């Protein structure tokens, strides 16, 4: 009635809620797959399991892209959350970039096949775990932005904590790589991979900062 169809408004809302939740789930799942991909690559890069996992990340990335487009269309067509629409879309785009960074890392491993000596495996796996924990904390921050803005700050603080941890681990690993006896080209090649993994944390921290600003804007 009067252009405000109540049932359609609430069903659109529920559908969008599910889609946004699904999008955050994908980011979280991609992280978990990435956490397994690095040890899989380091230990069993010869068998097909690694490529299978890369393919899985690719599929999840496409699914996330599709959701972003659908959410964008619905938000604008139905003129939903006019006051926070641009913030939500920017947030989804930046999270999508994060998924892209995971995917990019997987491709680089798959194409360039970096040769990490055994002595660096543990450090690289630890760095990867910290990065994934950082993104997990970001997922919590984003979920609280949508449902419980009071806890945004606490979760964003965890993102910052893991980002610092990741910086420490990156510096330590990079230093060890350059202190080793490997040829310079290999050192630089490995440093490139370590740096690319660490950059995921930087992006996650930037997004967490954004979310904190959006949460302040959202407060009643």
């Amino acid at each position, binding site marked *: 009635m*009067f*252009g405000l169809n109540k049932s359609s*408004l609430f069903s659109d809302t529920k559908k969008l809620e599910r889609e946004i939740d699904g999008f955050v789930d994908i980011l979280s799942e991609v992280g978990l797959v990435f956490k397994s991909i690095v040890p899989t690559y380091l230990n069993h890069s010869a068998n097909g399991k690694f490529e299978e996992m890369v393919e899985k990340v690719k599929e999840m990335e496409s699914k996330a892209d599709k959701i972003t487009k659908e959410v964008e269309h619905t938000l604008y067509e139905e*003129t*939903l*959350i006019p006051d926070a629409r641009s913030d939500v879309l920017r947030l989804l785009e930046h999270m999508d970039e994060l998924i892209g960074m995971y995917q990019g890392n997987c491709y680089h491993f798959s194409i360039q096949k970096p040769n990490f000596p055994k002595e660096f495996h543990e450090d690289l796996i630890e760095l990867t775990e910290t990065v994934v924990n950082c993104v997990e904390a970001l997922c919590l921050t984003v979920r609280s932005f949508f449902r419980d803005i009071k806890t945004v700050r606490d979760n964003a603080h965890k993102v910052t904590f893991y980002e610092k941890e990741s910086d420490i681990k990156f510096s330590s690993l990079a230093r060890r790589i350059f202190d080793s006896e490997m040829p310079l080209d290999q050192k630089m090649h490995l440093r490139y991979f370590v740096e690319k993994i660490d950059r995921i944390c930087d992006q996650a921290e930037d997004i967490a900062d954004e979310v904190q600003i959006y949460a302040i804007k959202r407060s*009643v």
Partner: protein
Amino acid sequence: MDISIIIFLLGGLFLGWSLGANDAANVFGTAVGTRMVRFKTAAIVCSIFVILGAIISGSGTTETLGKLGAINALPGAFAACVAAGVSVYLMTKAGLPVSTTQAIVGAIVGWNLYTGSDTNIRVLITILGTWVLCPVIAGVIAMGFFTITKNYLLRRKLHILRLDAYTRTALLLAGAFGAYSLGANNIANVMGVFVPISPFTDVSISNFFVFSSKEQLFLLGGLAIAVGVFTYSKKVMFTVGNDLLKMSPVAAFIVVISHSIVLFLFASQGISNFLQSINLPSIPLVPVSSSQAVVGAVIGIGLLKGGKEVQWSVAGRITIGWFTLPVIAALISMILLFILSNIFNLTVSF
């Protein structure tokens, strides 16, 4: 009906149009300006409920204005309405948030002074008191609602999209209530002066329902307000919406509901009777300013947030309006009455 009667009624209809054009924005401005509710939806709901409010609950405030001064000739009522309309226009151009209420009161007092009729000082003081009380009560109600809503939302942890859907519905319902209250409270400004000299007669439908001359006047006034809503309020709504954009849609809902409650309180015969029945002082039924109720509510929320965002200059301008607008309206009313009686030889009082 005599053509002169229609011309004289046009004064009131003009006031109604301007009320619809300006005050509908207080009810639906934020919702439409922030695109939470479509203009067409807002205009239809606003018009229906303004008319309902005017016909069902418009009598109380009209009686109070009648006690202030019963204008007993159509040319006199016409002069009062035009004086009110012109003074509101002048003050709005000067950037003061004024209301037709203050203007019509000034214009009626002007008629009293010109014709030598008595002004009921007790009623005048009551009316002046409500002007001060209106933004204060709106502010207090807004503070209460704001605190309750904020705590409730923090506990409920609603998804941003679910909250958006609820807020849209709430804004529409609050807007409907606001429009009803606006019609009930402010119809006296538009048609009150014509009630004692209504050119209409009671119409009986199958001896079951009587459509009184007063209700016919109120319907006409309500329609004029609705025309104002449809023809001119869109621009004002977008201006109000953009000005208040810093405010969240939930806060906007609190402002609208607080404003609506205040207007309803000062128009509801039922609440007034109830308070009297339990030996509490009854609320005077007085037309109050819709714009000032909104400003009061906004200031109330601003104070809760620490007071930094409160624009005290607006509060200052409201206070200036309380004194200057009635005086200007009274002066213009007297000048118009002089012109009508001395140049056009019209009877402005009996």
